[in-house]
């Protein structure tokens, strides 16, 4: 199995590599000190298994899992079992190993990984075209197509290769671009007010010179977008 190691701590990466070298079926193709580097790698490379540290600064292991389009098997490594339990809702999580890692327990996890079949036989690569664009659309998150009610969206934020969709009761991180999602949104409801933000204009609470308050988020408005925003509002 080709695998990668993601851990911000060098000591942890060296220990994992040492353990992997004890198992003939494992081939460590690369190691990463942060999840963003690993995402870039996975955009153009496939692996069978990821050893993933959960507790990392800025972008932790659970954030990383949310971004995976076609997740391979994952073995979590952590000092805190409670974080691992949270991640077990995903069927591609094979096992979790508590640090400091120990060879026999490590080998058991590898046996599990070799036996484990990802339960879904087909991995959905593209979200289908929306049928009823006025009411809802689907996003692909962790091989599940999740329906999002369009009017419930109040903000969409660009985050590198990802977008964060904020609805009245949930947030979703999706591998996509603001441009792609903009094309799927009804122009009557949504407006791009900044290169990194699309808002639902019905959800605006107030507007200042160069920002809008939407729910609890204060969002900047580009100077070039302000006239269009003002035109779209029902002013007294």
């Amino acid at each position, binding site marked *: 199995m080709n695998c990668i190691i993601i851990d*911000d*701590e*060098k*000591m*942890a990466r*060296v*220990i994992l590599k*040492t*353990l992997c070298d004890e198992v003939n079926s494992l081939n460590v193709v690369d190691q990463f000190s942060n999840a963003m580097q690993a995402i870039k790698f996975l955009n153009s490379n496939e692996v069978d298994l990821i050893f993933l540290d959960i*507790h990392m*600064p800025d972008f932790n292991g659970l954030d990383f899992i949310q971004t995976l389009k076609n997740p391979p098997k994952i073995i979590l490594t952590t*000092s805190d079992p409670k974080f691992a339990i949270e991640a077990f809702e995903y069927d591609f999580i094979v096992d979790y190993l508590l*640090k*400091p890692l*120990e*060879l026999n327990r490590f080998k058991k996890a590898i046996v599990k990984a070799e036996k484990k079949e990802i339960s879904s036989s087909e991995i959905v690569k593209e979200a289908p075209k929306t049928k009823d664009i006025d009411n809802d659309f689907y996003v692909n998150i962790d091989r599940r197509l999740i329906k999002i009610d369009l009017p419930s969206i109040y903000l969409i934020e660009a985050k590198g290769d990802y977008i964060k969709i904020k609805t009245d009761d949930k947030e979703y991180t999706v591998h996509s671009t603001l441009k792609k999602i903009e094309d799927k949104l009804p122009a009557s409801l949504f407006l791009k007010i900044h290169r990194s933000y699309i808002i639902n204009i019905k959800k605006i609470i107030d507007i200042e010179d160069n920002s809008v308050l939407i729910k609890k988020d204060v969002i900047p408005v580009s100077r070039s977008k302000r006239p269009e925003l003002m035109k779209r509002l029902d002013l007294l």
Partner: protein
Amino acid sequence: MEQPNLEYINQLARGNESIKNELIDVIKTEFPEEKQEYLESFQKQEYKKIEENVHRLKHKISILGLEKSYEIANKYEHNLRESSIEGAKEFDDILQVISAYIETI
């Protein structure tokens, strides 16, 4: 106070001196850096950052076989989540013991 040891590193290296030396080199390089980062975060009273620093140092504490110290670090990390620095003194003592030990290996 309990003393650090190389039992875990020896188990992992399984007699391979080159692996053992690599692991010791990493700990000798990474521990002082992490300790310094911790002290700087502590000075600035950045609880979230201190908690992250403690979390990383905790792994080194466990690798050096310091079981009781690991529990102290765990409690301290938990306190930091509640924005309390209770346990900082004990944690500092652990760092001092490790600093002295890694000079000898």
